[in-house]
């Protein structure tokens, strides 16, 4: 008799467990991407020197940069990054892309003469793929939020 009562009690207790168990996990709905920066991501590193991109990302985004010889340089208008009412360029230094301020000295058709605030020999200026680069830069800063 005792055994059977035990069995029954066990059964009584088992179903409510079933009800509790399904609460967590398994919201297989969304697989959230992990951190956005890392050695196997498009953005390899981020520091105050800017961001470093994987070579695959540079290729996919068709990012191209031109050599500049000095602090004062003429660049195509398309290399200009407009943010609100300010103007910048993206500088490539040792693999780091960084947005830097410029001063426009002269405008001549599709060419601008600008002065770059911080210049070191070997610096380049990004001329193509700026939309992607700028978005990646913003993304590394604040991420992307999904809202409905």
């Amino acid at each position, binding site marked *: *008799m005792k*055994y*059977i*009562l*035990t*069995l*029954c009690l*066990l*059964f*009584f207790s*088992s*179903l*409510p*467990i*079933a*009800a*509790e*168990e*399904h*609460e*967590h*996990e*398994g*919201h*297989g*709905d*969304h*697989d*959230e*991407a992990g951190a*956005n920066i890392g050695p*196997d*991501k*498009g*953005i390899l590193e981020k520091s105050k020197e800017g961001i470093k*991109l*994987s070579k*695959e*990302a540079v*290729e*996919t*985004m068709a990012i191209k940069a031109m050599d500049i010889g000095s602090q004062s340089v003429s660049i195509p208008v398309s290399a200009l990054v*407009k943010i*609100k*009412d300010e103007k910048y360029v993206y500088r490539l230094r040792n693999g780091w892309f960084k947005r830097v301020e410029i001063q426009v000295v002269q405008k001549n058709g599709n060419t601008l003469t600008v002065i770059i605030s911080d210049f070191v020999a070997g610096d380049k200026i990004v001329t193509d793929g700026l*939309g*992607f680069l700028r*978005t*990646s830069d*913003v*993304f*590394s800063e*604040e*991420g*992307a*939020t*999904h*809202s*409905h």
Partner: protein
Amino acid sequence: MMNKMIQFSVYNRGVVLFLTVLLVLAGIYSFQQLPIDAVPDITNNQVQVNTTIDGLVPEEIERTITFPIESAMRGMAGVQQVRSITRFGLSQVTVVFKDSVDIYRARQLVSERLQSIAGDLPPGAKPGLGPISSGLGEIYQFVIDYKEVKQGQERIEQLMEIKALQDWFVKPRLLTVEGVAEINTTGGFERQFHIQPDPKKMATYRVHFGEILEALKKVNKNVGGGYVEQTAEQFLVQGVGLLRSIHDIKQVPVKTLDSFRVIRIEDIADVKLGRELRTGAATYNGREVVLGTVMMLLGENSRTVALRVDEKVKEIQSTLPDGVELKTVYDRSQLVNATLSTVEHNLVMGAVLVIVILLFLLGNARAALVTALIIPFSLLATFLFMKPLGISGNLMSLGALDFGIIVDGTVIVIDNCVRLIHERTKILGRKLSISEVQDAIVEATIEIRQAAGFGQLLVVVVFLPVFALTGIEGKMFVPMASTFVIAVLAALALSFTTVPALASLLLSSDSEDKEPRLMGIFRKQYLPVLEFGILHKRKTIAAAVVAVLVGIVLFATRGSEFLPQLSEGSFAFHMIRPVNVSLTQSVEFQEKADKLVQEFSEVEHVFSRIGTSEVATDPMGVNVADTYMMLKPRSEWPKEGWRAKTYEELVQAIMAKLEKYLPGQSYLASQPIQMRFNELLEGTRADVAVKIYGPDLKTLMNLGQEVQEVVQTVPGAGDVESDMAGTSPVYKIIPKSDLLTKYGANLSDVLETISVALGGEEAGYIYTGERKYPLIVRLSDKDRADIETIENLPVGLSGNATTPLSSLAKMNFQETFGSVNRENSSRRSTVMINLRGRDTESFVNEAQHKVSEKIKMPEGYFIEWGGNFKNLKQAKQRLFILTPVALIIILAMIYAAFGSLPQTFLIFSCVPLALVGGIISLMIRGLPFSISAGIGFIALSGIAVLNGVVLVNYFNQLRTTEGLTGVALIRKATMIRLRPVLMTALVAIFGFIPMMISTGVGSEVQRPLATVVIGGIISSTLLTLVVLPVLYLVFEKYMQKFSQKFSH
């Protein structure tokens, strides 16, 4: 009464069989009428009010449109929730009604309320109700594009042309298809004639924007001159002014200068086809296209409608202009077919296996045939009741049907008939006459009817707790349980009517029932085991108790998930870019992403929807894209080593590639239907949602961040996400009243300049045939993008003069909110939390405590804890009451039938014995506990009790009729009842085997259920055949004289 019915069925079998045929025909008819989809619809009952308005910033739209509409929706009967979202160009108010409210009535109420405030909305705001559709509504998608893709401005014109084709040619024809609620269009450009004034020239001639608009509106119309009578007849008079071409537009005079020179449009503006300010776009395999989405009317049959649409699409394809093609990119009927074929395959295979088992165990083909016939009959009878009860056919409702369990009653009846006929033949030593066969069948059926019927009724009762589930869980599982119950009841009814009737027709009188060899083998194996059990009673019982305890320990440590996710055979990713990304850049990202995804050879094609479509069923920002990846059938996937990737591996691979090659966006992986459900149930699907209400957006955002930070520190918080998207820059132009006075300018002129020059204004239409294209006055894209040009926009002054905008207004950049969410008449920000490895209740308690301790709510702000956990809490409370109630009812039923407490518990002991096997089989297959498995356990309890009833009933019967006791009784009873017990068990097992091994679409949901039932039945059958007799022996002395109820 039951006995009379059985007698009637046998002696008037013609009538019964005729009625059965009628039932079959009616069943086939209802099946054709039954709404069929892949998964049950879990959308709540909602009406959306979408209001589009051009150019206004979100907070402005919220104040002038969202708020009035929302207030108007308050206080309607049956409303559960009013929530809204306001973003650039759109206000969407969602009114959620109780499920019991009829959707047409709900819409009626909403549109009445809407009517009453229509006059209060700003001009240009066009409120409209969303389509009458549900989360399953997007059943068919297609893209339109040119075969030869051009570049630059020519490409824009192509995109205009295909959009026009969609709007004026494809869409109207598809809307005529029965069952279609709406055709939604994404992407392309509306063909617009743009008049792009040059601000410098305007300034030179002192023309302001108002004059251009006025000039166009004045001429672009036809006028009527009435009719003129002549001698006998009459003719009509028409003055023609309608503009027809770009040339016409250029010639429109705007102003006459003092020098009498007439300034025409061409002197101050460029006229050409221009791009509209879009809020969304679409891509297909990496290039922009026009995407059409067919939305199905609520309650229609998605497969039928999709097929009808497909037919119409084929018709349209053949009549498209040369060089344009229309391709189907998503067709729900494929998924439904795949799901149905999984279900069908499982059912047919199950049925075949059941017949084979019966053949082997009964050794009687005719008996097997009768049982097999009951399978389609009970299925068709089930269809008959499904539609009236509002249950649709889908993987959950049809997929759970196991005919092994359903035909249990029939199996028991048929087994007894065969046995009795056999016995009588033996006694008489000759063939039975027809009437003798009939008598035997009636007797056999009556003898077993209580055991069989009773057992099946128990199966029904154990499903009771499932009906306690509410919300999404309820919508998924209640139809499943209902269908199962209907099918069992139908089979039960059939087993006392059609089964004896068929048996009397088909079972041969000389039923030479030589026991099949297989039964002999079983008996030989079984006997020594039973003997061992009888000898070592204590050890046997102890072993059973240990088994149950081990089972419970295993169960407690088993991981769990809510519901195994149905694989739809295709993916849908949200690709999310930074909130202020431009639409053009977003499209460029999408094109790259499409191409990267296409490099996977498993992918058939990729298409996407960026931002908001024409009908804002899902108002996303332009930074978000729904990317659909249609996959090839898995058999065509390339093999890596010995097998192709699994779906999960493919998702991971795609994700990894995108993350490496295309930074700048994040990804959420999902599937098409699943994604749509989430969108419609917005915010309610997270385990826990912390909603913060209050008046100021900035404070709300800060509070949201604070809550997010605090909650993240609570153990068990998996993904924590806030829905406030951050701010977007807005360029504010604020006219200064002192400057206005100084120049004698009018505030309205300043505002008009801004809205026309930058936002653009419609100045009428250009008609070609029945198509009409808007005529828009707006600056060129290049001028609009230039801050300097904006500063120098000419504003008209009184007396033929203009002055630059900057002389009248101050301009600067400020931040605004990209979207505003509201709920229950207050602004809201939500922190959504999905848990990992912790039960919700203790998490919520701890999190609530922490939040109230660390965050002080400013005055006028408050927090509400909601989300899925509320539903679960409610379901749990109900289950806590209903599970014991169901168990007590079962106990009471057994007690009422057997009249003995020890026997009641004896029979009941089969249940834990069955559950052990279920748990172990889940372990072996490596499946977590889920609701699917839970349903399996419930079904299992019913079957286990059925086994116990059959056995104990016969023990009692033998005691009374033959006066046997003790070991002799046990030996005889188990030998005779071995066959039906084994048969019901094997039939149930084999009926489920195809489901357990199936890998087809939808098998994810069936597999755990089948696994549990199979494992459980194996253990319970083994144990009931050994442990139950032993227990019976032990308890025999406690039992009183048995009730006569079961002994005939």
